[in-house]
């Protein structure tokens, strides 16, 4: 009897963390929708909110096969659309969708790397992705100046190559979180220096701006092609990582414990890292190196729902897009007509978040 009353209590307590997760999810969805709504209605050609609302809820547009074809295959939008509808559906909406995908991928990737490296201050870029992607972008801009269309692939490939290099350096008949992080520092430092050196070989300020947009992360000018590029890996990787959350929980117990519990640690760690790198590379390919999202989001979610990855991954999946959407609204609209890279804004939001944590905990060792 005592046992059953205790399990009822346990159930009630489980519920409270699930309730907090639910509030987080609902809150994130509301914030994301508000930000998206502002983003699609405002700009150099502002649409009144009423008109925007009508365009977004018009069933003739929402259930039109040609509109869907335009989004999914890149064909032309039907010509009967109003000017507002065209601007919203062909220019501003894709940016919202890409921002959301970037948020999803970075947040989930960061959550996984925080478990794999057992470091709550890890980001998706900790295993060299940023160095590799940045260097690849700069190399492309310097040596193939006209080929901007290959930049997404160059960035993703650079990130993946850097990750492989990090793993190869860290491998010594096996690996461990500390060696992986150190190898990440080695690769990132060298690649970052090479990348900075290459800036001096850029011969136009336009190329310079492109390079900066890629290395700080920008959503300026993204369209449905970027959405199509990012959606495929996202719908493969994210569900797998959601299903793997129980394994992430076991990995968090430490290598020796995970091994004692029968986990093939090296395989699981490599597999999860590879999936998380794929998610990070997806975000990098469409938006460049947007900083802080992958670090702040899982961390913030953890303070709300605890470190159980079954909740943490779900929470990150919703808070990530909300953060990137809000940041991108600021990046695009705050200093009109100048647009700043979204990575600048996420950095400006992300820094003070840690200041807030320091003040609240009063002690960094509690992280």
């Amino acid at each position, binding site marked *: 009897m005592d046992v059953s009353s205790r399990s009822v209590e346990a159930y009630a307590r489980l519920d409270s963390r699930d309730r907090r997760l639910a509030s987080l999810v609902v809150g994130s969805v509301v914030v994301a929708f508000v930000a998206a709504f502002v983003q699609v209605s405002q700009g150099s050609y502002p649409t009144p909110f009423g008109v925007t609302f009508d365009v977004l809820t018009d069933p003739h547009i929402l259930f039109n096969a040609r509109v869907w074809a335009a989004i999914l295959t890149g064909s032309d939008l039907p010509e009967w659309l109003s000017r507002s509808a065209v601007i919203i559906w062909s220019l501003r909406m894709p940016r919202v969708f890409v921002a959301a995908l970037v948020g999803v991928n970075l947040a989930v990737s960061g959550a996984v790397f925080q478990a794999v490296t057992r470091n709550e201050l890890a980001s998706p870029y900790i295993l060299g992705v940023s160095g590799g992607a940045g260097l690849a972008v700069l190399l492309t801009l310097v040596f193939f100046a006209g080929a901007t269309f290959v930049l997404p692939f160059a960035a993703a490939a650079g990130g993946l190559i850097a990750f492989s290099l990090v793993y190869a350096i860290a491998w010594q008949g096996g690996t461990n979180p500390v060696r992986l992080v150190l190898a990440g520092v080695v690769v990132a430092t060298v690649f970052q220096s090479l990348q900075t050196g290459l800036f001096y070989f850029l011969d136009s300020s336009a190329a310079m701006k492109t390079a900066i947009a890629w290395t700080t992360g920008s959503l300026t000018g993204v369209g449905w092609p970027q959405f199509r590029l990012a959606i495929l890996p996202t719908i493969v990787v994210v569900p797998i990582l959601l299903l793997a959350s129980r394994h992430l929980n076991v990995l968090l117990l430490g290598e020796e*414990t995970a091994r004692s519990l029968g986990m093939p640690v090296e395989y699981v760690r490599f597999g999860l890292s590879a999936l998380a790198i794929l998610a990070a590379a997806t975000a990098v390919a469409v938006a460049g190196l947007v900083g802080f999202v992958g670090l702040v989001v899982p961390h913030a979610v953890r303070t709300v729902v605890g*470190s159980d990855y079954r909740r943490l991954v779900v929470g990150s999946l919703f808070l990530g897009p909300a953060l990137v959407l809000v940041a991108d609204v600021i990046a695009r609209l705050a200093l009109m007509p100048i647009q700043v890279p979204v990575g600048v804004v996420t950095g400006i939001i992300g820094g003070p978040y840690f200041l807030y944590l320091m003040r609240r905990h009063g002690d960094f060792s509690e992280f």
Partner: protein
Amino acid sequence: MSKIDTTPQTSDETDGSERTTDPDAKIHASDLRVGYPGLDEPVVDTETLVVPEGEVTALVGPNGSGKSTLLKALARHLDADTGDVLIDGREIAAYGSKEFARELGMLSQHGSTPEGIMVEELVGHGRYPHKGFLEGQTEEDREAIDRAIDLAGIEHLRETDVSSLSGGQRQLVRIAMALAQETDTLLLDEPTTYLDLRHQLRVMDVIRTLNEERGVTVCIVLHDLTQAARFADYLVALRDGDIYDWGRPEDVVTEGLLAEVFGVEASVEYGTEPRIIPKRALDE
């Protein structure tokens, strides 16, 4: 009563690596050499180690004698350079990862406990080797978790956040997690180090009960020789990576052993309980 007692022996004839070993040896290691990358000399280099089935065996020895390394090799945390380790007559390398974790549990000295998770959930991770990739918690899992929590005597902590526990309570929770694995063999690496006296006794009690009531074979590294002599059925004394002596505590713990292995001049008395009174450290 206990599930473990009825589990059939897994040393099936189909396995080619089966050897003949002592009939009562749960673990049998031979010609074992274990080292670390970057070290020339092996840390453990010993001919034969037997962990008798259904008994409590304690590994003792001074710092650096290779006790933990030996235990890690038995638990497959370290790969031996040479030699064989058999469990139930079957080579440990022949087991799959989860299959091995259903046979043998290992409580490492270091393990982290993430915050924001309840005792019950942490203990639940002990069921990991019994589940498939996507399988959720079954009734059987819940029963095993209840048994483990009950045996470890942490029922009152069930819904407590792990991060708010004391070091001693945390160790009992980690033991409960290993118990939820429901293995026939349990290895423990210095489970009482850094604990206060009361929790040391609690931990030893739990292990004793596990051994007596469920017939689990225990192999435990202990720092404290008196505790080991009082607690274990068998002692294995290690010196410089090799087994110096093996047997019943009263046969192994002698003034000679203390001088030769531990470098300590001491007097040893056996009344109802062994008493070791260390006097001074001998020169190297």
